[in-house]
């Protein structure tokens, strides 16, 4: 508990952590709501929409009834990048500043320190997710009020499930950043590799691999980003008039949750092993 309190004490004083949190929320408001609402309200002569579908039809995504699935769809990967960076920062900077030796020569053992830090990271992840949904809820209410639409929100149970799902997704990303920073004992390479994987590697492998047949999909269902997608898709797609909705996810929520939990547990176990066994020479 002392290690957790100590880690939280220094984490909340770190501006770069808040830059990530505020950056995510700012992106959620602008990219998620403000820009789409402005575009779908004022744009004219948009090409590429199916016959009979108008920009106004797309705005249904922005209203409160859809804010849970909209948030999950939009931020499970892109928002995860912010969580990844936080995970890297919390661990990687300790090596950069040489504060690892300062921490390890305090009262608690290395593993207690590690779990204190993971606890602080989890707290920030929860804060990010809850703030994200809160900001999206307010934004969706704003969009509905501006358009004179219903302020009906999903049931509390659905909201809680959505928040829980996103905590798992962001938890995976933060854990991914944490283990990269632990393995490489620095932030720069961890962020670089993490972003490369998040934005390029898995998409590229399976984008090309899907041409080879369904067996590639079988492999893909054990990869993390695919499962963050399956979990988000489990909340359904917004039914937009004239567009195909309700596509069936390749794997269900239970599968996605199981796979993501396996990744998170593996990240923690490997981090613990590395932290416990390695010499601190710098």
């Amino acid at each position: 508990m002392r290690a957790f309190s100590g880690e939280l004490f220094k984490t909340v004083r770190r501006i770069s952590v808040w830059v990530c949190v505020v950056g995510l929320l700012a992106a959620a408001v602008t990219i998620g709501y403000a820009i789409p609402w402005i575009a779908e309200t004022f744009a004219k002569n948009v090409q590429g929409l199916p016959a009979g579908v108008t920009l106004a039809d797309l705005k249904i995504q922005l209203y409160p009834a859809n804010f849970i699935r909209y948030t999950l769809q939009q931020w499970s990967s892109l928002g995860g990048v912010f969580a990844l960076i936080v995970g890297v920062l919390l661990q990687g900077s300790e090596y950069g500043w040489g504060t690892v030796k300062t921490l390890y020569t305090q009262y608690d053992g290395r593993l207690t320190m590690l779990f204190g830090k993971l606890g602080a990271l989890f707290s920030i992840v929860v804060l990010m997710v809850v703030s994200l949904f809160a900001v999206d809820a307010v934004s969706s209410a704003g969009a509905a009020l501006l358009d004179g639409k219903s302020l009906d929100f999903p049931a509390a149970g659905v909201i809680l499930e959505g928040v829980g799902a996103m905590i798992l997704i962001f938890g995976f990303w933060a854990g991914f950043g944490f283990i990269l920073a632990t393995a490489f004992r620095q932030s720069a390479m961890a962020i670089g590799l993490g972003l490369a994987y998040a934005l390029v590697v898995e998409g590229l492998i399976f984008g090309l691999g899907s041409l080879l047949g369904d067996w590639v999909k079988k492999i893909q269902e054990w990869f993390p980003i695919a499962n963050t997608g399956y979990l988000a898709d489990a909340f359904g797609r917004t039914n937009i008039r004239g567009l195909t909705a309700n596509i069936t996810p390749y794997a269900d929520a239970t599968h996605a949750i199981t796979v993501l939990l396996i990744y998170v547990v593996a990240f923690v176990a490997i981090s613990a092993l590395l932290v416990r066994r390695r010499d601190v020479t710098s």
Partner: protein
Amino acid sequence: MASTTSDAVVETRALTKRYSNGIVAVDGLNLVVRRGEVYGFLGPNGAGKTTTLRMLLGLIRPTSGSATAAGAAPGTPQSLEKVGAMVEAPAFYPYMTGYDNLRMLAIYNGVPVSRVDATLEQVELTPRARHKFSTYSMGMKQRLGIAACLLKQPELLILDEPTNGLDPQGMVDVRNLIIELGKGDRTVLVSSHLLGEVEQMCTRIGVIQKGKLVAEGTIDELRGSASLFIRAQPAEKALSVLAEACGADKVKGDGDGAFSLSVDLSRTAELNRLLVQSGVDVTELRENERSLEDVFMELTGTEAGL
């Protein structure tokens, strides 16, 4: 684990660290630091001082051998709760103030926050306590490092080259602080390659070279007994008189009529009289005390930092 020497606060037995590249940084080190000592761990750069201290803190695992620090295995909570340590440059969070850095460590150690102010006062850092660590000078960083060591009121302080990078005034301040901290029951293990500071601070010294302890004792013990230096002419006649008076094995000719004599210094006047009565001109006669620097250079084959 084998039993430890009764008043030993630090004890190592055949402690060895061999890195994967084959370099043996510490080689079968046997070291005992007793309660209340200010023990100087002296050696040239790369001798294995920092590796030893890191092993005593559990930061590095030994390849073989064993160690205890403050009565427990290094790196365990039982040991660390009694040990304050600063290894190489003090490392803190640059975005936090000195005060907040210590407060964070106080939380970690379950130490009352009131200790933070007390330790800052002790190292005379209170006026800059609310400034960010990143704005501190090297001297202030060292003092914050020492303050962090003192938070727990440890019974053992391990300080690795604590005056490194300091200006002369800063070195004096830190040295005086360590002397002050070493008073009473607290044990201080301080590494250095600076002979002068070890001489001023430490009650006992261990000299390490290539990972091995090559000498250990008080400063006087390391220096050994003083000898008599005589310069006289003619040299052959002087040698004959001195050898007859003291024994040939006690007289060492250094050339050009210079001699070192391993004799009791109370015989100085007698030997002078004998030489003069034998027609030898004595041009120089003095106590020939070996400096710690001479000892260090003999033991390590290096030039000591001064």
